[in-house]
C-alpha cells in the first residue's frame, strides 16, 4: 500500500485515533497500540491545583506516534490561535487538529472561523489539520490557505451514524490536492472501509472504538477495515452496474440436453 504523507511525514497507518471516552488510560493505550495507529489526538484542560490523577500523556507518547493536539473548547479563530500556542508549548509539536465548534449540541464546525484560524496558524508555522464541514468549496479554501489535510465530517461527532455526507465526501476527495481524512461519525469498521474505498486518505475514529464492549478488539477491526478499504481503492473497484441485469462470472455451459 502507498504510504500516507502529510507535511513531509510518512505514515504506514491510515487510521488516526482519538483518546476520548475510554474507561481507563490503560485501556486507551492498549487500543492505540492494537490499532497500529501513528497519529493520536490529545485535548487540553486546566490543571487542578491538587492534581493527583494519572497523566494520560504518558500513555500516548510512543516513538512511532505523532501527537495531534486539538483545540476542542475554543469558539473563535482568536481562541484557536491561543490554544494552538499552548498546545505547541505543552506537547512540543506544531501539528494541530483545528476544531472550532461553538455549538455544544451538534458540535458542528464553524466554517468562517475555521478558515480564518487556518490562515493565521499556517503563517505561524503550524501544520494544520482542520476538522470541517463536508463542504467541497470550503475544503478547497482550506487547502489554498495551506491546510496540511482537510478533515470533513461523516456525521456529527460521536453519533456513529456513518457516512451521512457520502456524496460530498466523494466530491471533496475528487477535488482535493491534500489528504482527505474522514473525521467524526464513523461508527463501524464498514463505514471506515467505505470511506477508504472512496479514496479517503485516512479515517479518524474515537467513539466507535472507545465505547465498544471490547475496545482493543474493535481497534483491530478498524485497523483491518482501513487496510482493506485502502487496498481495494488502490486495486481499483469494479464499475457498479446502473441496473440489476446480471453479468455472468461463470461460463453459461449447458449440461442437459434441451
Amino acid at each position: 500500500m502507498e504510504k500516507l504523507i502529510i507535511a513531509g511525514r510518512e505514515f504506514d497507518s491510515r487510521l488516526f485515533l482519538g483518546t476520548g471516552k475510554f474507561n481507563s488510560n490503560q485501556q486507551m493505550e492498549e487500543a492505540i497500540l492494537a490499532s497500529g495507529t501513528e497519529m493520536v489526538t490529545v485535548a487540553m484542560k486546566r490543571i487542578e491545583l491538587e492534581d493527583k490523577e494519572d497523566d494520560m500523556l504518558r500513555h500516548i507518547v510512543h516513538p512511532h506516534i505523532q501527537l495531534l493536539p486539538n483545540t476542542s473548547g475554543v469558539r473563535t479563530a482568536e481562541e484557536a490561535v491561543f490554544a494552538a500556542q499552548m498546545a505547541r508549548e505543552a506537547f512540543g509539536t506544531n501539528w494541530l487538529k483545528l476544531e472550532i465548534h461553538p455549538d455544544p449540541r451538534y458540535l458542528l464546525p464553524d466554517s468562517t472561523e475555521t478558515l480564518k484560524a487556518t490562515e493565521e496558524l499556517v503563517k505561524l508555522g503550524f501544520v494544520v489539520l482542520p476538522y470541517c464541514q463536508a463542504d467541497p468549496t470550503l475544503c478547497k479554501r482550506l487547502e489554498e490557505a495551506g491546510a496540511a489535510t482537510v478533515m470533513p465530517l461523516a456525521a456529527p461527532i460521536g453519533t456513529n451514524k456513518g457516512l451521512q455526507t457520502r456524496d460530498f465526501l466523494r466530491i471533496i476527495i475528487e477535488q482535493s490536492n491534500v489528504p482527505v481524512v474522514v473525521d467524526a461519525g464513523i461508527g463501524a469498521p464498514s463505514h471506515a472501509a467505505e470511506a477508504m474505498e472512496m479514496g479517503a486518505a485516512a479515517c479518524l475514529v474515537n467513539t466507535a472504538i472507545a465505547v465498544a464492549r471490547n475496545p482493543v478488539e474493535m481497534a483491530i477491526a478498524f485497523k483491518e477495515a482501513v487496510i482493506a478499504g485502502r487496498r481495494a481503492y488502490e486495486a481499483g473497484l469494479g464499475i457498479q452496474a446502473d441496473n440489476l441485469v446480471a453479468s455472468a462470472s461463470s461460463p453459461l455451459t449447458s449440461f442437459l440436453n434441451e
Partner: protein
Amino acid sequence: MKIQVNNKETELTQGNNVASLALQLKLPEQGVAVALNNRMIPRSQWAEQEIKEGDSLVIIKAACGG
C-alpha cells in the same frame, strides 16, 4: 502575593516569576503550558517573566479527547 491560577485565588509564597510559581505548584518537566494574562509564556522565559499582584494565569495539561 495573591494571583489567580485557573480562576482560583492562589498565594504565590516565594519569588515573583513564573518559574517560582511552577516550583510551588510542582509542575512537571513537560506536558504543561502557562499563559500570563492570556499570553503564552514559553518555558524558556519562565525565570525572567515577572508576576504581579492580581495577575491571572492559565495552566493547561493533556486531556483525553478526539
